[in-house]
């Protein structure tokens, strides 16, 4: 068992090193030609400048997960994760349509299989089905779009496609962009294609969720950037506006649902939608600004997006692995209504690192996401103050949505840590050993160290990202000196609360424990009367009732004797309209598919006829 564990982890670590090496030393393009229709079916691999930061993100996520996996009892999941990471590496290195689609589909299929790991649970099966459905529909849309691009360029290589893109006429260009946006947007969890994400990401084992939420959705961001700035460039302002609005909708949706969610891993998944929304909104802003002739703003937005993506990888890997530790140590209890006091109890060693992750996810100083959120918001502020009326309107809209979404996400993570980690610990179980500083804690500590280091020394990565972003936008050496100086100033400002927190901890480290009970109007409350996460978010459900449709269900269990009921059960539910709509679409498509099943008669004669018709069609259309 131990051998497999070590082998799987080193496989993952090796992949991480490979990704880092590829990012550091770009190799010469590798081209493999398939024998038939060689023009389109080439497998080109190379390292492009755009892929390099994403290779680093992949390396970062993989290495942290590899360390976490070293812990006893996590052997089995390591090898599929290594395959998954290899497929993601393929996506980043792919430089032709065929190579890209092949790697992308491999990545999707492996991730679907990983999501379905615990398929004995019905919720997992349903989540995997929803994911598979969306993923394959997205792949269909994207394949058609890529085929159109390749046919137009007369070659499957990305360089040829990029050169030929300028001569695309309006209608096919719009069609191609729509196909690619659907394909990549569904993977990125863009509203309204996000409904599968909060179900599928948490359904996977935690280490897989970390890679799904921390790395895979960022590959969708990579693909969107590749599409809009390389393959179909220049795209003009309208696709940028679409991405911007979809991103803002994602930020609002993710923030709101994360704030009222009570299941730990689903909350993290909603937060991924929120962060992805922020990044896609920044990408949209970059496209719009670039199309309207504001290269400096476009560069700033792109730098902010790339930095936020890096930060999201670090913080979401950390948080999902932390959730994995919760799952293991608390025997699959991930309901925030039932978790409490983990910092003083079962997760004594992991809690500080999870706190760092929570602060980062809420974009609070001194974390890394604080700096990148600051950059994104500055991009939108610059848009608002640009003097161009339409850009200013988009900027204002962006500020409103990002602040509201960010505020709600902050509420979500304050709730997560405050309810599950702070407070009175649950009584210790008999079979429970106190947490030691093992491999999983080490992985969390590494993640937290990266989060804090990026937050306190952001310029180390901002300068290379700036060089890359100005290259992508095509602007000549843009200087963002004043912005970067502001970002550097944030670092030492953020050090003030950090230092004063350490000082306060030092001051209080010898303080005697308080022995008075908590004030409860003079009575002693039992532990089960402690406040729950659901109760904590009641005001939010009230304020956002127009979107959440909260309902309270009360069941009275009558007593067999006496006047009082035996039990009264309360349950609170909220609705997610996008999810309901998706379920409708899925049901419809299943009905449709059942009709189409007629063609699969199982008779050999029919299939011979199909083959003949297909060949005839290919001959007629392929001329």
């Amino acid at each position, binding site marked *: 068992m131990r051998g497999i564990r070590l082998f799987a982890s080193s496989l993952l670590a090796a992949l991480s090193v490979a990704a880092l090496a590829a990012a550091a030393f770009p190799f010469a393009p590798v081209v493999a030609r398939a024998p038939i229709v060689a023009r389109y079916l080439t497998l080109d691999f190379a390292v492009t400048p755009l892929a390099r930061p994403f290779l680093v993100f992949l390396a970062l996520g993989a290495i942290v997960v590899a360390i976490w996996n070293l812990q006893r009892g996590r052997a089995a999941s390591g090898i599929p994760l290594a395959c998954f990471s290899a497929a993601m590496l393929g996506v980043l290195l792919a430089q032709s349509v065929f190579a890209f689609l092949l790697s992308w589909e491999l990545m999707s299929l492996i991730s679907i299989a990983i999501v379905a790991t615990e398929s004995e649970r019905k919720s997992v099966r349903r989540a995997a089905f929803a994911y598979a459905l969306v993923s394959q529909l997205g792949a269909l849309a994207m394949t058609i779009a890529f085929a159109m691009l390749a046919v137009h360029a007369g070659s499957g290589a990305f360089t040829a496609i990029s050169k030929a893109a300028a001569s695309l006429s309006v209608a096919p260009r719009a069609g191609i962009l729509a196909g690619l946006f659907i394909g990549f947007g569904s993977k990125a969890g863009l509203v309204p294609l996000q409904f599968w994400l909060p179900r599928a990401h948490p359904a996977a084992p935690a280490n897989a969720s970390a890679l799904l939420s921390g790395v895979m959705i960022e590959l969708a961001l990579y693909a969107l950037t590749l599409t809009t700035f390389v393959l179909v460039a220049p795209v003009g302002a309208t696709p940028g506006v679409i991405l911007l609005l979809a991103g803002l909708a994602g930020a609002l949706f993710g923030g709101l649902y994360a704030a009222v969610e009570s299941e730990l891993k689903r909350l993290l998944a909603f937060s991924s939608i929120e962060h992805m929304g922020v990044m896609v909104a920044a990408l949209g802003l970059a496209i719009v600004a670039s199309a309207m002739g504001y290269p400096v703003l476009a560069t700033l937005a792109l730098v902010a997006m790339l930095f936020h993506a890096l930060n999201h990888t670090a913080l979401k890997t950390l948080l999902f692995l932390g959730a994995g530790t919760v799952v293991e140590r608390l025997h699959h209890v991930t309901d925030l209504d039932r978790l409490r006091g983990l910092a003083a109890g079962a997760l004594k060693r992991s809690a500080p690192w999870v706190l760092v992750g929570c602060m980062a996810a809420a974009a*609070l100083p001194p974390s890394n996401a*604080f700096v990148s959120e600051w950059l994104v918001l500055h991009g939108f*502020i610059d848009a608002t103050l640009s003097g161009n009326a339409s850009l200013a309107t988009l900027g204002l809209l962006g*500020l409103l949505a990002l602040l509201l979404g*960010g505020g709600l996400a902050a509420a979500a993570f304050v709730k997560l840590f405050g309810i599950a980690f702070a407070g009175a610990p649950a009584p210790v179980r008999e079979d429970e050993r106190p947490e030691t500083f093992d491999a999983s804690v080490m992985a969390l500590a590494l993640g937290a160290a990266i989060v804090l280091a990026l937050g306190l020394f952001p310029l180390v990565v901002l300068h290379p990202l700036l060089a890359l972003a100005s290259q992508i936008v095509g602007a000549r050496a843009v200087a963002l000196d004043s912005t970067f100086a502001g970002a550097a100033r944030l670092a030492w400002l953020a050090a*003030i609360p950090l230092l*004063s927190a350490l000082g306060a901890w030092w001051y209080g480290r010898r*303080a005697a424990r308080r022995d008075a009970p908590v004030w409860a109007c003079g009575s002693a409350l039992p532990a089960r009367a402690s406040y729950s996460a659901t109760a904590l978010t009641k005001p939010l459900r009230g304020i956002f009732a127009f979107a959440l449709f909260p309902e309270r269900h009360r069941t009275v269990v009558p007593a067999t004797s006496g006047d009082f009921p035996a039990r009264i059960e309360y349950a609170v539910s909220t609705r997610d309209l996008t999810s309901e709509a998706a379920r409708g679409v899925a049901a419809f498509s299943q009905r449709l598919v059942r009709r189409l099943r007629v063609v699969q008669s199982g008779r050999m004669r029919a299939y011979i006829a199909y083959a003949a018709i297909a060949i005839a069609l290919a001959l007629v259309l392929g001329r």
Partner: protein
Amino acid sequence: MSVVQILAILAFAPLLQGAIASLRARLSGRPGPPFLQPYRDLTKLLRKAPRAGRFGSPTGFLAVGIALGSSVAILFLLPQVFSAGVRANALDVVALVLFFALGRAAMVVAALDTGSSFSAMAVGREIAFAAIVEAPFLLALLAARSTQASALLAGSALFIVLLFETARVPIDNQETHYELTMIHEGMLLEYAGPVFAAWQYAAQLRQAAMAILVAFVFAGSGLPAPLCLIAVAAAIPFVEAFQAKMRLFELPHLASAATLLAIAAMGIDIIGAAR
């Protein structure tokens, strides 16, 4: 100059609190506490021995340190109200808003760490209202950067945000200890001694910072900044004395009003700039 302002706020933030409390009491016909009462309260609390939470976790101390530190960090981000050429200063509005959020998050975690249900009840309200006043906060500050046309609108929006941030009537009432309605006091119900003093002082620093920000925004209309500051400080007890506390679920409307005012201010700026 910046150092002078920071030191002045560090020294006089409790005085502002005392002045507001005293004025409010006088306006409602009571003799009220002396202006210097907050200093006496703080020194009294600081003389007590520090106590850790009942579960021995350091969360309470860490949180109060973060809150105090974020309040101090905010002071470094404030505009120079008393020097010439205020308008030219670029104000880092995003950092301001996020440092305010940090202080609030620290207080919320500290409140939940006590395990008290009354504190948690207050936390539920605090996180809900905090989420909806962040947008008007930033937009109102942003509108302050431009010409005077929008300053009054933005200033009014920011004043409403101030009432939210500083736990004032009609949002909250600092003078009651009625568990079911309070927000700010409710979260600190379980704290005492030097830690409680630090919480109070951090809140007083934030209040002084908010007052300066509102004065700064109003000063954009051409009024002298010191006069604006005095007006803002005097307006708080007036509102507190003559306004009833609003029902909890009416408060989102107040936040929406602030957002609307801030958007209007920004709108004027955008149209003005596009011309």
